[in-house]
């Protein structure tokens, strides 16, 4: 049975462009079914705004099934809203009550400049991936599946990190605007698997240093883990730190041989 929520007040951040000064704008949604997702609620609001000849609220969204990492939104001071392990697109209005006031802000970090309203540019993540978030594979005939034996435990651990959808909630939730959970997840994903070993240490060095140029630093609050829609553990940050240390030492030795 669906219920209807009444009189939802939305305080939405509106900003005309990257350099424009933004402010909160208040809109009231008179009635909405609790089966609507949060983004559907915004769609309905946008329909109303367009009908009234006003400009629709700009927000990022794509797959709407929690796997693409496009949606964002700081909802009532929490990245991806109040439900744990859930991206905004999978958050439903049943998490709210009638007469609630919901505040919606974009991710805020210098690496994530606001494009318009609630949409931010997360290409700083691409810069981190470019610098090492890949494995170099030979071309030629495709190898048989499961040619390289990988233990179940290792495969599961790597998969837990590979679950990262790159939404940026970790950066948004971090009081320091750090990207350690994102970078750590990518590093843990690749360096736990045999395919990732060849570039293991050059990868961690390059990715960490690229991350440093754009993001803040980790002070171990754990807010990123709480905000992550894929519930990636901050254990990956410790793994990244360990590999970074090893990389600095081993790369130093290797360079000395030249």
């Amino acid at each position, binding site marked *: 049975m669906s219920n209807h929520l009444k009189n939802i007040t939305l305080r939405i951040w509106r900003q005309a462009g990257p350099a424009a000064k933004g402010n909160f704008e208040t809109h009231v949604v008179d009635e909405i079914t609790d089966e609507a997702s949060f983004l559907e609620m915004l769609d309905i609001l946008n329909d109303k705004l367009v009908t009234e000849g006003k400009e629709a609220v700009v927000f990022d969204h794509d797959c709407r099934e929690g796997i693409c990492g496009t949606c964002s939104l700081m909802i009532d001071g929490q990245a991806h809203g109040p439900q744990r392990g859930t991206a905004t697109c999978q958050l439903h209005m049943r998490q709210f009550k009638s007469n609630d006031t919901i505040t919606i802000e974009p991710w805020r970090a210098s690496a994530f400049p606001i494009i318009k309203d609630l949409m931010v540019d997360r290409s700083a993540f691409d810069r981190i991936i470019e610098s090492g978030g890949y494995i170099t594979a030979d071309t030629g005939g495709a190898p048989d599946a499961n040619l390289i034996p990988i233990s179940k435990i290792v495969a599961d651990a790597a998969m837990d990190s590979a679950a990262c959808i790159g939404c940026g909630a970790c950066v948004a939730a971090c009081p320091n605007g750090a990207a350690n959970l994102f970078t750590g997840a990518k590093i843990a994903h690749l360096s736990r698997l045999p395919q990732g070993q060849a570039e293991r240490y050059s990868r961690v060095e390059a990715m960490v240093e690229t991350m440093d140029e754009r993001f803040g*630093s980790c002070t171990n609050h754990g807010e990123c883990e709480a905000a992550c829609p894929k519930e990636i553990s901050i254990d990956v940050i410790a793994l990244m730190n*360990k590999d970074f240390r090893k990389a600095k030492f081993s790369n130093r030795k290797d360079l000395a041989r030249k």
Partner: protein
Amino acid sequence: MAQAVTSQRGPVTGTATHKRKKRPFLLDLYSTAVGKKYVMGITGIAMMGFVLFHMIGNLKMYMGAADLDHYAHFLQTLLYPLAPKGWVLWILRGGLISMLFLHLHAAWSLTRLNRHARPVKYQSKRDYQIANFASRTMRWSGIIVLAFLVWHLLDLTFGVVNSHVGEMITHSGDEESVKSVYASVVHSFDRTPVALFYVVANILLGIHLFHGTWSIFQSLGWNNPRFNTWRRGFATGFAAIVVLGNVSFPIAVMAGIVG
């Protein structure tokens, strides 16, 4: 449609080569945020060792004036006659001063980096889930403990604000006179505001240690399912032991147990 303004976009090649200025090894490590966190952690461990042994040493005051004064004399003449009197102590102090300096410098530059990473704050109230009072106030607890440290050195080490520092006493059975540390401590804590500042600063030190000790494991990459569950317990226990020991001294003096 106008092109979106992006943060400094590097070459989008898929295999962007990473160019960095070559520096000597340690400076290279320290130039990264992760490297600075290593420095925070390692210097933190050194200072944790100091606060623990400082507390344990001071427990001697419960055994009487002669015991505490002899312990202080032992520190002053550490490794004597191999090394001249006071030298080893100053070498240890030099180590601690450099640890403190590195800890402060790393904290200062990481704070600047973090401020830079979010120049525009959230305009609505944040709803923190995990971050606790200790982790949110590391800078403040650290600064207040630093201020206390300055006072503490002026009080009991250099005697600028304590007329009893430097007085000599010959305990019964001794041939030589030693510095009367016990008398300085009692004089210091007989002043109620000083004792209160001491208690407050030590509670803040405990809060700093509660987050810092746990944090070390993450920063130094010591993450292992075998011991992950007791990292928090270790941090709590360590902070509690140091605080309880230290706070007991002014209370003992004010209660007349010591003095």
